[in-house]
């Protein structure tokens, strides 16, 4: 059945297919380049398992929803063999429920969750290896040299050249999905949502709020809609600017590092002025907010942006014109459009590889339909393209916020969110484009009106394989710059 982003529907309306039919439909649906899998998971159902797949149909703003009933003892034909972008989802289902996927080329643990059926520990990961005197292996992590989250990278190198990279995640697993069901208060769940990934607070909290409000059939409040759109664009400006600083760090370009770093400060401090947190924690809540975007804040934002923009442009113009910078980022870490389609890249990394995947434009929500947003697309798929997309998106987001503020209307007050009552037997797919790419929150309610399923797919789930592909054939010394150009989330993946 075809559904819309953010609109709740009766779970029983999803057609339940036999697995062979489900398999055939998914393979067929994923054939065009404008279709990609948003989420595919298994949920316990009547003593057995029900598979749910949600596939984005970008050209007409629909999401295709499919289901199939299977038993945990089943061996299923792997969709991954035909559509490699499905590899993470089948690994996830296999790891938690034990279902075998025949023909899956890489049925390895995904995130070592506490409720895994597969057993084993995070130390038992079966790394790919090539026995040859020509190759050596380099292991990095889980703890990295900088102040970042943990993950393990295993390189197979031929001299300095990376032949293969395997990324082992799961170190950050906090049992998030389990907590989302066991903690019953809406406030607890909102705080869990904003702690999925600290750099994507607004986007995750918004995806949760939109899902929750849809399940409760709450009328959209124009003020909250406006404020959330604005906050999403502000989060993009802040993180992209910080990432440009970090990219400069990794090529030892001190000026860019310092200037972009200091330019990020007023942008995250703006969130502190708005809601008391530099990362916008506590700003977004289902049905209400404690922090409205006042006229005084609008004036402050204008001043902040007016001071920011010329310095940002000046620094970026210099950076993208400097031969010593360009020689490090051009043709480094390339992901071709063909590869991007095959592995299902999303968001900023997809846009840098020629794929216009941006749900703000393709599955609009909040005030995005009125912004008429054109995704920034580059075709070279290299570090340069990923940096350049950031630069142009910062300017685009500044323009978006200016246009939003120009349309600003009177604040419509809301009561606290206690009035929201979840309706029973519903499903909602809530898509929000974070700065990194699409976040997909799928929530389902039981017959008692309790949340029975809550699945989150961070864009990093799709894009970590993109990093592994990007570094092939590159010098291992270029790994940090490739990694930073994707800037993927560990905790958002591991949950």
């Amino acid at each position: 059945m075809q559904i819309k982003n953010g609109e709740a529907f009766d779970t029983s309306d999803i057609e339940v297919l036999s697995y062979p039919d489900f398999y055939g439909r998914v393979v067929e649906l994923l054939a065009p380049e404008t279709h990609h899998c948003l989420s595919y998971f298994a949920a316990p159902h009547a003593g057995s398992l029900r598979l749910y797949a949600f596939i984005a149909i970008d050209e007409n703003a629909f999401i295709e929803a499919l289901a199939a009933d299977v038993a945990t003892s089943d061996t299923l034909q792997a969709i991954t063999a035909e559509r490699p972008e499905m590899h993470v989802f089948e690994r996830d289902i296999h790891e938690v429920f034990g279902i075998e996927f025949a023909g899956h080329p890489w049925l390895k643990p995904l995130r070592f969750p506490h409720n895994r059926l597969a057993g084993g520990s995070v130390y038992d990961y079966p790394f790919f290896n090539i026995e040859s005197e020509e190759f050596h292996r380099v292991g990095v992590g889980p703890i990295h040299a900088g102040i970042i989250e943990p993950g393990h990278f295993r390189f197979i190198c031929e001299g300095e050249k990376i032949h293969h990279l395997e990324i082992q995640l799961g170190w950050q697993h906090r049992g998030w999905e389990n907590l989302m069901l066991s903690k019953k208060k809406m406030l607890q769940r909102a705080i869990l949502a904003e702690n999925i990934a600290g750099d994507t607070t607004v986007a995750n909290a918004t995806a949760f709020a939109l899902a929750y409000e849809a399940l409760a059939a709450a009328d959209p409040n124009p003020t909250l809609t406006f404020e959330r759109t604005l906050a999403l664009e502000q989060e993009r400006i802040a993180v992209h600017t910080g990432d440009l600083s970090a990219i400069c760090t990794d090529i030892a370009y001190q000026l860019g590092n310092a200037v972009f770093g200091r330019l990020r400060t007023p942008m995250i401090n703006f969130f502190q002025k708005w809601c008391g947190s530099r990362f916008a924690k506590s700003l977004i809540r289902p049905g209400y907010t404690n922090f409205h975007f006042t006229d005084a804040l609008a004036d402050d934002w204008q001043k902040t942006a007016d001071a920011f923009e010329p310095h940002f442009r000046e620094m970026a113009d210099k950076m993208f014109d400097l031969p010593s910078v360009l020689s490090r980022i051009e043709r480094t870490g390339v992901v071709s459009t063909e590869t991007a389609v095959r592995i299902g890249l999303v968001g900023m990394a997809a846009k840098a590889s020629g794929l216009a995947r941006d749900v703000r434009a393709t599955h609009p929500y909040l005030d995005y339909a009125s912004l008429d947003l054109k995704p920034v697309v580059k075709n070279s798929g290299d570090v340069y393209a990923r940096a350049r997309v950031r630069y142009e998106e910062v300017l685009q987001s500044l323009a978006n916020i200016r246009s939003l503020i120009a349309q600003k209307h009177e604040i419509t007050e809301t009561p606290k969110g206690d009035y929201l009552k979840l309706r029973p037997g519903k499903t909602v797919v809530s898509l929000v484009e974070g700065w990194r790419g699409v976040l997909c929150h799928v929530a389902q309610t039981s017959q008692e009106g309790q949340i029975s399923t809550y699945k989150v797919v961070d864009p990093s789930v799709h894009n970590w394989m993109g990093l592994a592909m990007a570094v092939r054939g590159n010098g291992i010394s270029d790994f940090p710059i490739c990694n930073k150009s994707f800037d993927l989330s560990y905790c958002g993946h591991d949950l």
Partner: protein
Amino acid sequence: MLDSLKILFHQGKQYIPDVTTTDVPGIFRGRPVISDAQVDETALVDLCPTGAISANPLSIDLGRCAFCAECMFACPQKISFTKDYHISANDRGALVVRAGDNRPIVVDPDKVRAEVKRLFGRSLKLREVSAGGDGSCEMELNATGNVNFDIGRFGISFVASPRHADGIVLTGPISENMADPFLDAYNAVPDPKILILAGTDAISGGIFDGSPALNRSVLDGLNVDLYVPGNPVHPLTFINGVLDMLQRKNR
């Protein structure tokens, strides 16, 4: 070259001259103040998403607090958050703010080990370990070294190897999968060493407390030198906490 100098010149002065007294912009939530007003304390206890609030007398444990401020909005006559970012302490109990108690939170100089000041007072190198952290505390710790906060001016910095470090800064609620790597890093730091828990998640597990995917027992038996509350920690809270721990008079 001239372009670069021009860009540099355009930035003006960005560093904060005195990080111990500077004002933070906006409505930052630091140390709460709880009045003696008579209110329904049970409602506030029930409201708190992380179990940070206790009744009789009403108190807030900053080691558990998510700083969401819902209690302040529900009961402004009872609870308000000040902009005081000096909220680090070396005694876990000092993070509990009680009704009627409007004293600053301090690092107790009598509880700082003598070797901490003697060995690390003028140079402190730290290794950061994230164990389930969501990245926000990690970004704020990175920010301590940027051109605004510039913790390097005090001879304090983060290093890549625990062998080069004088201590560990831990962030995150301690995922089971990171428990052993954290201990490995901690054990690799030469003695005497310090341990700093940065952020509500690290101090108590925060909103993740009680998850079966955590293993907080690895902290058992380890001496914690500094607790830095925050969700995430503010760079100024971290810098001031460490300076106080080192009993830096000259700053």
